[in-house]
Each structure stands twice: as structure tokens, then as C-alpha cells.
């Protein structure tokens, strides 16, 4: 919906900006649903939630992630589990410490894991979508903005070296957190489509969950007046099995 699937997202980077007091996960879940529908495969890098969470949400939206994983269409890198293993390895001085150690090594290891999985998926299906949820969690691990941006740049190189790949990255922004702002600015400058999800400015409402702004950066089309960086503002409402999107002011209860 919203014109994201109308455009060919192969070789492009979709950035989802999640502002404080809103949850942008639904965008990722909808994009995964879209990819499953198109019979492509998904490589999910889960930093924010466990794989089970995405599976549960997926069943409500109509796809079964566990089944797809068994079939080999979906690969996942559960960073939360990796965290657990690394902590144990660190504690017992075993090999297998992926995440703790030199910052650059951490990012490099993660990148190589991702690269391996995407290559594996591309051998089976033509369309692969790499979904990263959520990049700003890497900052919480103590990794500096510089390393995370390097990691992002390497993921972008995958877009060129592996045709058929598309990238979806979610970042969280909280006001006052400079590192997150820097990371988000760096991401938005290189993204082709930016989806900004934020809560309503005036508070909370039972009819509208928040507002969403979609910006298409058309770098391959001429920059004419008003067409450049076209922005579309929508309001959305999260329901149990779907997400309703509508223009501001046209929620069903208001009409």
C-alpha cells in the first residue's frame, strides 16, 4: 500500500524512522507480508524482538514465519540470542563470542553473518529482502555511531553486489539523543524511501494510532518544483488483523 509496493523496491533502501511514543514495527511486518506475497524471501535481523514475536504478528497478517523458515524462504539472525551466547562465552572464556570485543569486529562479524545468509537465500529465490529491526539498538550495545554507519554502508554495498536484494532498515529516534539523531540523519540521506512514524502531537486517541509520512526521493527523475522529495502524510490506526491508513482528518468515526 501507499505506493511503496507500486515501485520496484529491488536495489533500494527503505528507511523507517520511528519517533518516540510510536511503534513502527507494523511497517516492517506489512513489508514482510508484501514480500511473502510476491514469493520472495526475507532475511530478518532481529535486534528489537525475538523471532517468535514476528511469527505471532505474521500469523495475524496472514503468513507463517516458522513454516517459511522450515521451507528455507526465511532466514533470521536473532541478535538477542547471540547476545546471550556471547555473554556466556565471554564469561566462560569460550570461543563463540560474536558480539563483545572490539567494536569493529562486532560489526564485521554481524555483517558477514548477514552476507552469508543473503547469499544462501539468493541461490533459491530471486527476490530477497533484508529487514533490520532496529539499527539504533546497536547503539545501546555501546557501539559508536561511526561503526554503525560503516555497517550500514557495507549493507548498502550488498545491494550492488547481490542483485535482487532490497533493504529495509528501522531506526528509533528519541528527542535529546544526539547519537540516534546522527544515525538517523545518516540513514535518511542515503535512503530511497523514508517512512516516518510518529505519535499524534496532541496526545493519544482511540481512533488514530499515529501519523505516518512517506517521502520518496526520486533521484532518477528530474527535480521539478513540488515533485522533489514528494511527501505524503497519512494517519493510521492499528487494528488486530490489519492496519488502516487514511488521510488526516478522515478517520471513520469522524466522517
Amino acid at each position, binding site marked *: 500500500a501507499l505506493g511503496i509496493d507500486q515501485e520496484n523496491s529491488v536495489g533500494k533502501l527503505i528507511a523507517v524512522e520511528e519517533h518516540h511514543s510510536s511503534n513502527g514495527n507494523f511497517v516492517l511486518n506489512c513489508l514482510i507480508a508484501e514480500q511473502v506475497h510476491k514469493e520472495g524471501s526475507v532475511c530478518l535481523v532481529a535486534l528489537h524482538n525475538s523471532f517468535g514475536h514476528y511469527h505471532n504478528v505474521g500469523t495475524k497478517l496472514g503468513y507463517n514465519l516458522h513454516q517459511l523458515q522450515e521451507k528455507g524462504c526465511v532466514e533470521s539472525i536473532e541478535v538477542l540470542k547471540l547476545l546471550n551466547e556471547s555473554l556466556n562465552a565471554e564469561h566462560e572464556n569460550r570461543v563463540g563470542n560474536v558480539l563483545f570485543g572490539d567494536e*569493529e*569486529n562486532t560489526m*564485521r562479524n554481524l*555483517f*558477514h553473518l548477514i552476507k552469508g545468509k543473503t547469499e544462501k537465500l539468493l541461490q533459491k529465490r530471486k527476490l530477497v529482502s533484508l529487514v533490520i529491526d532496529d539499527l539504533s539498538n546497536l547503539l545501546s550495545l555501546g557501539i559508536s*555511531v*561511526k561503526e554503525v*554507519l*560503516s555497517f550500514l*554502508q*557495507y549493507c*548498502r*554495498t550488498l545491494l*550492488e*553486489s547481490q542483485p535482487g536484494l532490497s533493504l529495509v532498515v528501522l531506526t528509533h529516534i528519541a528527542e535529546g539523543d544526539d547519537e540516534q*539523531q*546522527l544515525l538517523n*540523519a*545518516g540513514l535518511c*540521506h542515503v535512503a530511497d524511501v523514508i517512512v516516518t512514524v510518529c505519535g499524534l502531537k496532541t496526545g493519544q486517541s482511540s481512533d488514530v494510532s499515529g501519523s505516518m509520512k512517506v517521502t520518496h526521493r526520486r*533521484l*532518477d527523475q*528530474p*527535480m*521539478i*518544483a*513540488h515533485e*522533489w522529495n514528494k511527501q505524503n502524510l497519512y494517519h493510521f490506526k492499528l487494528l488486530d488483523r490489519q492496519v488502516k491508513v487514511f488521510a488526516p482528518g478522515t478517520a471513520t468515526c469522524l466522517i
Partner: protein
Amino acid sequence: MKTGLRNSSEDHVHFHDCFTDHRGWIDSQEKENIRSDVHTKGNSILSVLQTSPVTSTNDCIIIIDSLTPLIYNIGFTRCYRELHSLLVKSTNGLTVSQVICLIHEDTLPDVHVALPQLCHLATTTVKIGSHTQSSRGNPTASIIHKKQGGKILRQVEYYSIDADNRLKSEILTLVTPTVAGVNEDENQLPEDLTTFKLSLGQQEKEARSQLVLPYLRINSEKGGKVFYQPDAADDWDEEDPDDDLDI
């Protein structure tokens, strides 16, 4: 980026790929080199130029896609020094006549320190902004150019890019809203707004000037004096209440 540039004279343009594998992560995995003390290609502008194939020793123009990754990788001080040395001396037989850099302001760490320094180093600064009222929906560019004699040229233009990737720009003329008309209207009463008669006739103006307001006394004496008129309920006592004091 290469697809965006359609130029016939491609042999004049050398692309240096500092984007893929800028930290040597991909190479080093194959060599099983875990210690990445080897910061390979693209880590500094000078090293890139040193390894570039030089076909001619004419003046060359260096265009840097984005300074932010460079600043992140080698630090701002080193980046500044390298930019400065590019302009001042020649590297590998190459004389640099111009360096063009792109900076995304919001991605720079410590932007309030870094940006003024970079602007100071530059002779021409072009600041791109979003569209304003007078730019007819096009984005604007404000240009500051420091001439060698010390003069500064300042200009604001608005630009658009057409289908052939050609830039069209025009000088921005500020559209000032006509203020004069508004001032005149304020002096006159808006008589046409209601059916009530808001203006005064001649007789009514005279009557107004002759009117004496009931409680206003024109004070012709010097100093202040309190005028008090007691009501019927007031108990006015002429005596001085402090008479019985023995001072």
C-alpha cells in the same frame, strides 16, 4: 552514481570507489586477517590520489561525494589537514586546481565546530535550502564567494533540474507583499462592513467637543489636592483625630 552522469568524455572523469569495502572487511575475511590494523583503500584522500593512475598532469578537479564518512573514518582534524594540503601542494605530480566537497550538515558530528571551520577553508560556499515563498516551489541555493581581493559576493538563487540532468537556476527576487495599501486602510473606518452609522456628522463632533465629563475637574492649582464629596451615609468629622496626642 555513475548512472546519473551521462557524459561523453568519460576518459576525463576518474571514479575512485571509496564506498565498497572501505574498512577492508571483505578482503580481510578471505585472508583471515582478524586484526584490521590494515586500513586499506579509501581511508585518506592523499592515499587514494597516490594510487590513482595519472594520465595527464594538467590541473585536476577533485569532487568528493560526501565528507561525512571521511570525517568519521580519519577524524576531522586529519581530514581538514588533507583538504588544506591538497590545495596548497601537489601530490604525485597532480596539481589540484579545485576541490568540491558535499557536506550533509545534519550528519556531521560536532557540526557547530566543524562546519564553520570548513566554511572558512572554502572560497565558495553554496548552501542548499528548501523552497521558500518566492522560489516558486523550487529549492534555493545561497552562494557566498570570497574573491581574492577580499570582496565577498553573496547571491541567492533557486534551481531546478530537468530531464537531461541539466541544472537551471535563476536569481531569487524576494517578493515583498504590498504594505502601502494596508496602511491606508487602517486610517479609515471600515464603513462598508455594517449597516450601522459609525462616522460622526459635523454637529455631533461639536457636541462631543463641548461635553464636560461629570467627574473630571481641571486642576488649575499647583500641587495635588484631593477632592472628596461625602455621601449621605458618610460621617464627616471636621476634628483632627490626633488632637489628644501630647507632642
